[in-house]
């Protein structure tokens, strides 16, 4: 399958160009690749995009803080602007992208109306993308609704289970790209199995499963050939992210992946240690993804990194942090208007904390991602309302 890149497809319902952010856009088209990366467990945003300009930060984190930027110190934070800095574990991966203007950070972002501070509740909230008030429909995630709104979407979840965000609508494939082997069920058996599911509710999922299995195996066999020529084989999330890059370059344009292990209640570490290790892996993964996509396609790729909430601004009694509220979201891509912190901000002092505990949410995830979709796909208000019902898209001019 090839993508119709730069080819603007229009929906019959949206033939009239919509006016978004002062520009005329044809709607909706899917020439852009979008990958949503969910950091499950609530990553400690305040120690990743760090308010090094805040004295209060250093008071609140006597053992967990990262020291202010200092070129002579490899453990020091990397300057982003006068107030903010980046964790040193991202020096060789995300920092170069920042310098190239291909990363924007959105601080004080999150699910503003969900204060449950429950991982599971808030992950569900974000994946569903519905208003928190009223009853939830667990059969309708926002990426599934986006996929139905677009013409030519080729969605896929790079997860071992189909995530909530892709539920609803037609069967969306999922594949754990980290663990793919040679299929043992041959084409003949696969055909008979599909016969058994003909007309059954699971029929489309079964057919889709065999198709994706073959596609992914083919793509990964090519990688193995390349690896045999002496390429270093990456591990963990980097391995998965590189495979995702290959698959999204050739076959898919709407992807979701999650990476866990961010719930740092105890011994979180600072410049070195547990969180630094997780971050290093995440950074290598995202840089590896961009590398596999290649410079041309990267120009037309957007990666959004989200997490369910931030953590307590003060460290707890166990050199860790507990559940908080506002987080920092990342937007990356060759065409991203980055190198800046986007969205509304407040000074990081004790009095601006939410409930004297954590970051406030000043940019709701639905407004942020909705606004981004408006620009990427040229969705009109009506279409954005289908993806994020009842939300007010905020255009931060990120692409």
């Amino acid at each position, binding site marked *: 399958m090839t993508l119709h890149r730069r080819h603007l497809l229009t929906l019959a319902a949206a033939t009239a160009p919509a006016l978004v952010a002062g520009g005329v856009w044809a709607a909706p088209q899917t020439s852009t690749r979008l990958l949503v990366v969910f950091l499950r467990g609530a990553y400690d945003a305040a120690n990743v995009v760090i308010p090094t300009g805040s004295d209060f930060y250093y008071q609140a984190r006597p053992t967990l803080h990262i020291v202010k930027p200092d070129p002579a110190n490899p453990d020091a934070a990397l300057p982003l602007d006068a107030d903010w800095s980046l964790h040193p574990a991202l020096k060789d991966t995300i920092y170069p992208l920042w310098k190239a203007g291909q990363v924007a950070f959105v601080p004080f972002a999150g699910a503003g109306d969900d204060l449950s501070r429950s991982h599971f509740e808030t992950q569900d909230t974000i994946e569903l993308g519905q208003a928190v008030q009223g009853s939830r429909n667990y059969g309708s995630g926002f990426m599934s609704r986006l996929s139905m709104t677009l013409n030519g979407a080729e969605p896929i979840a790079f997860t071992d289970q*189909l995530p909530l965000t892709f539920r609803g609508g037609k069967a969306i494939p999922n594949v754990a790209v980290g663990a793919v082997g040679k299929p043992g069920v041959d084409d003949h058996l696969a055909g008979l199995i599909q016969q058994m599911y003909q007309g059954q509710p699971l029929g489309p999922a079964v057919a889709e499963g065999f198709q994706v299995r073959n596609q992914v195996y083919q793509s990964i066999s090519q990688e193995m050939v390349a690896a045999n020529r002496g390429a270093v084989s990456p591990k963990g999330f980097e391995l998965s992210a590189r495979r995702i890059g290959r698959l999204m370059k050739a076959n898919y344009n709407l992807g979701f992946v999650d990476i*866990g292990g961010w*719930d740092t209640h105890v011994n979180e570490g600072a410049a070195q240690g547990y969180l630094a290790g997780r971050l290093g892996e995440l950074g290598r993964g995202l840089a590896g993804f961009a590398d596999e996509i290649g410079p041309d396609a990267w120009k037309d790729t957007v990666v959004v990194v989200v997490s369910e909430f931030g953590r307590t601004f003060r460290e707890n*009694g166990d050199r860790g942090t507990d559940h908080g509220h506002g987080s920092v979201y990342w937007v990356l891509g060759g065409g991203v208007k980055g190198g800046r912190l986007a969205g509304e901000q407040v000074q990081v002092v004790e009095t601006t904390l939410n409930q004297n505990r954590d970051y406030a949410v000043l940019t709701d995830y639905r407004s942020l991602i909705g606004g981004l979709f408006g620009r990427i796909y040229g969705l009109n208000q009506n279409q954005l309302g289908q993806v994020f019902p009842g939300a007010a898209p905020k255009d931060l001019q990120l692409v």
Partner: protein
Amino acid sequence: MRPRRPKTALMTAAVAAVALAASTAFATDGQVSLNAHDLALLNRVTWGQSASAAEDLQKLGARAWLDRQLRAQAGDRLPPAAQAQVDALPVSKTPMPELVVQLNAQIQAANKLTDPDQKKLAQQAYQQAMTDLGKQAATRELLRDLYSPDQLQEQMTWFWLNHFNVHMYKRDVRAMIGDYEDQAIRPRALGKFRDLLEATLKHPAMLRYLDNDQNANGHINENYAREIMELHTLGVGSGYSQRDVQELARILTGVGVDVNPDPPKLKAAYQPLLVRSGLFEFNPNRHDFGDKVFLGHTIKGSGFGEVEQALDIIAREPATAHHVSAQMAAYFMGDDPPPALVDRMAKAFQRSDGDIAATLRVLFTSREFDASLGKAFKDPMHYTVSAVRFAYDGRVILNTTPMQNWLNRMSEGLYNHETPDGFSAASASWNGPGQMAVRFEIARQIGSGSAGLFKLDQPQAKDQPAFPQLQNALYYKAGLDQTLAPTTKSALGQAGSPQDWNTLFLSSPEFMRR
């Protein structure tokens, strides 16, 4: 492949041989005949239908059989070949505190080594010993799920283990997980919820996993306090506040784990307040003795009694009755259990002071339950166990490692869910396209031969000949074949070999449901 036989035919030679080889627990006259309802009931209440379980049900009748299933049994009633395997496991023979203390000494000694190579080897040996203990616990659990006649108790053990989930790869939980399951959960799986809640609270596996062993006065860690209310009892959105989480965390200060055989040094006034049992310890030195206001109740600072009070309050909240009932209903019925049924279960839960068997009885004897039979999608655990039960009824497998690997591959590995919410009961969590493709691969492995299940987990072990007997007494005599859709029968008819027939049967839409 073997010719198809009519429903009334005698048992096949293969099945007769299996029955002869089996222990007395499986003694059979070969007459299995259940109506469609009882067959479906059997499939739902057990880990999967088998000829021997069908005979049990037939002998007692559905009502008496269900009564029997709802009664907790002390100890195992396994067939001798399975019992011998369970009894031989070090995790069954050595008390958990001893294992933890031994391993703790082992890693401390390893860390003291100065030679880097020796140190690395010693650390690896420690990790290997820990992982072995986790594997042994999984083996014991799987053998019980496969062969115990007390099937409901085993199903509920897994259910509660998942409800009070811990992840064995955190710290030294692998050395504790077998005991957590066998001593804290299994004896109470059909008992009083309040007892179960306290047993999990006092178990070092839980205290380690949710960090409460590090929750102390002045060093508050609210991780466990939050999950008790959100996941274990009241349920999210049931009305408790962030303040309640913080107050419960204060109540839980000092509730922890101590691997030191000597009691902590305490001032005289604190000595009577110390609580120790195995590795569990309530240390008054670490406790916040201030008064607390929890869920509207004032709790006076007094020591571990505060925890008992808090658990009494939580366990009696109507929200807990409802949350726990809804979870049990979803576990057995699949998606969206009818709210009216959940309400009736919650009432029974409250009337009986949180009696789990009494609550389940309301579920199993309801119209709604009957109407849902055969419609729930099996999660990987039910899929794997039911396939092996069906294939090797009466012949005890010798190695559960392949099953453990299949479960991990399907993302439902035993003790291997990282977050405290446990595995989802929703079908949509398990039937995505990629997941179906993996499941068919596993169907092929189970269907094609012995799949490593009869090869002892030892170096140079020889595989004993075995082949899954799927076209068995249950299939033909009990009428299972009559329940298959024409499309399934047609595909089975096109199988070119017994291996393919088995793969197709285990891949069929019917076998995916319970």
